[in-house]
């Protein structure tokens, strides 16, 4: 396992700057997830680490060696693509061993690596098949196997689960996590799915518009989002935002309704946006606030109850089976220790 370090990376594609002055350090053995919406540059970043996209300036280091201009095959990496990119006319075995054969690896060594990867990914029975005869999940495993046999220092994943259906996605997600635990290699993973990011990552890099919004552990990024974008991107249902003002004592009010009580630790005398997650809104008879139920979404093991208070709409995660009717007025509380406050203009955390 090796580290990856990017310094002042700039990538311009088709005349447009995609990545601007980016610095990133990936620790050896960690599972780093690049998370962001389409077009935020995460795939481009991954491709430039792989050497498939040229950077215009900046340095890329893998395992302590400067790889900025190195060929993709010389960087000591393995990569798994979104569309698997398996060679359609070759068997699974040939797919996995092709690169090794070209590199002149001895036959015995190729055999050992292929068998090891096949065992790890339960591909033993499929070695003689062609990609067209495999299911989506099996093809994805072969793609992972092809990366594994390179016995690389760093593994790159480009949205590998997006072409699979939901159930298969969850299954393979867990297998990937197990794989990381078994191998311990450094893994860099690109996705737009925040569930994948939360469950797989040791650290998440949230990106938007070619720039890093926040780096942190899943818990960090979820509980203490650095700005409004990160706060809204993670968590489902999304965090609710209420625009209002903080008075001199730290009380938060929005259209005449109080949300937060005095607290000297809060910045005072300014406008702010209050962010509240659904799991921090509890419907209880002795709650401090009153709201009207507008919509109820039953989810099986929980319900999402949408409440309106004044002009604000809040969601509440409810774990009991009590039924709520639209129009009903209920009392609720907010866990004020877990809320976030943001600057209305910059979006940054206060």
């Amino acid at each position, binding site marked *: 396992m090796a580290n990856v370090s990017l310094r002042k990376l700039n990538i311009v594609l088709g005349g447009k700057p995609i990545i601007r002055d980016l610095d990133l350090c990936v620790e050896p053995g960690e599972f780093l997830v690049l998370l962001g919406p389409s077009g935020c540059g995460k795939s481009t970043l991954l*491709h430039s680490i*792989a050497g*498939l996209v040229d950077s215009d300036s900046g340095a890329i280091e893998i395992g302590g060696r400067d790889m900025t201009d190195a*060929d*993709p*095959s*010389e960087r000591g*990496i*393995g*990569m798994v*693509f*979104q*569309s*698997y*990119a*398996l*060679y*359609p*006319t*070759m068997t699974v075995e040939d797919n996995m061993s*092709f*690169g090794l054969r*070209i*590199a002149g690896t001895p036959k015995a060594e190729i055999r050992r690596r292929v068998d090891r990867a096949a065992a790890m990914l339960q591909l033993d029975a499929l070695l003689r098949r062609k990609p067209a005869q495999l299911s989506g999940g099996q093809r994805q495993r072969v793609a992972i196997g*092809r990366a594994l046999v390179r016995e690389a220092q760093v593994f790159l994943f480009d949205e590998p689960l997006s072409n699979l259906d939901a159930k298969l996605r969850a299954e393979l997600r867990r297998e990937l996590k197990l794989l990381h635990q078994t191998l311990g290699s450094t893994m860099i993973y690109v996705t737009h799915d925040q569930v994948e990011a939360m469950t797989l990552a040791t650290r998440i890099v949230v990106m938007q518009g070619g720039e890093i919004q926040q780096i942190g552990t899943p818990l960090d990024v979820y509980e203490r989002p650095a700005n409004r974008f990160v706060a809204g991107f993670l968590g489902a249902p999304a965090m609710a935002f209420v625009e209002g003002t903080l008075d001199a004592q730290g009380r938060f009010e929005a259209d005449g309704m109080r949300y937060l009580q005095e607290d000297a630790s809060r910045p005072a005398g300014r406008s702010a946006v209050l962010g509240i997650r659904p799991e921090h809104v509890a419907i209880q008879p002795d709650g401090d606030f009153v709201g009207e139920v507008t919509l109820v979404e039953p989810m099986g093991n929980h319900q999402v109850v949408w409440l309106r208070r004044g002009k604000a709409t809040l969601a509440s995660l409810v774990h009991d089976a009590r039924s709520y009717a639209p129009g009903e007025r209920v009392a609720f509380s907010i866990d004020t220790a877990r809320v976030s406050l943001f600057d209305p203009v910059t979006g940054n955390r206060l």
Partner: protein
Amino acid sequence: MATLRLTRVTPYTALLPMALVAALGYLGAGLWTFYISLTGSRTFPSGHFIGLAQYHRLFDNERWMLSLHNLAVYGVLFVLACLVIGFLLAVVIDQNAMWKMRGEGVFRTIFLYPYAMSFVATGLVWQWLLTPGDGIDGGLRALGFHDLRFDWIVSQDFAIHTVVIATVWQMSGLVMALMLAGLRGVDPEIWKAARLDGIPAWRVYAQIILPMLWPTIATVLLLLATAVAKLYDAVVAMTQGGPGIASEVPAKFIMDHLFLRSNVGLASAGAIVLLVPVLALLAPYAYARSRKEAA
């Protein structure tokens, strides 16, 4: 009910022209030609049945055997040259698309315009180009290459090769267009995966891309092979089968014997013989296609 019945019948009546053309124009005409080949017809079809005698005469005919030999030589050279040139051009243009070279549309126009010209026009232009003394032959000498001669078009052995040059010029662009369409269907992530595996570009083409392009190549082969069997216009325009009969081809043999030498029976036998390899190529192709559609 009247409307219901009409709706069920109308498709059949609408397809009547197609049925007539297929059954009479193609199938019927082919069967009639086969029938004539079994008779002793000279200028007009006669009912005089002589079995396979015309076929015996055909294969004793020196001109026919020469035409078959010419077609074989022509066929191999033509198909190979078109495939190689068409494929290389397609690869070069596709690669340049990846490197964003400008002018790709211009190059495609340059290579495909000959296909818009008829075989006759092609043959005539190349006849002029290859005229001994005034054509390229003379042009080379004017440039200073005094010992070089390029008089294939009047030589016994190489006249058919000049037809190869002209028709390859005309058809390679088509092969290029078809191969390019095939190349464009290749998932670009396969290229990325191959780069990562450290596979050199020529091996990617040889061991990954070409096998993937097999359906396209099969189609191209079928088109080229049938074009070979149909070779007529270009020969008539370029060499008239000459010098003498040095560049005679089966289609011309058949046409000459139908309309000039008044030997309809012999010509029909020739037509049926020409038909056999075409059907032999069509059958597996159609079978493979229908299996793929059923799957």
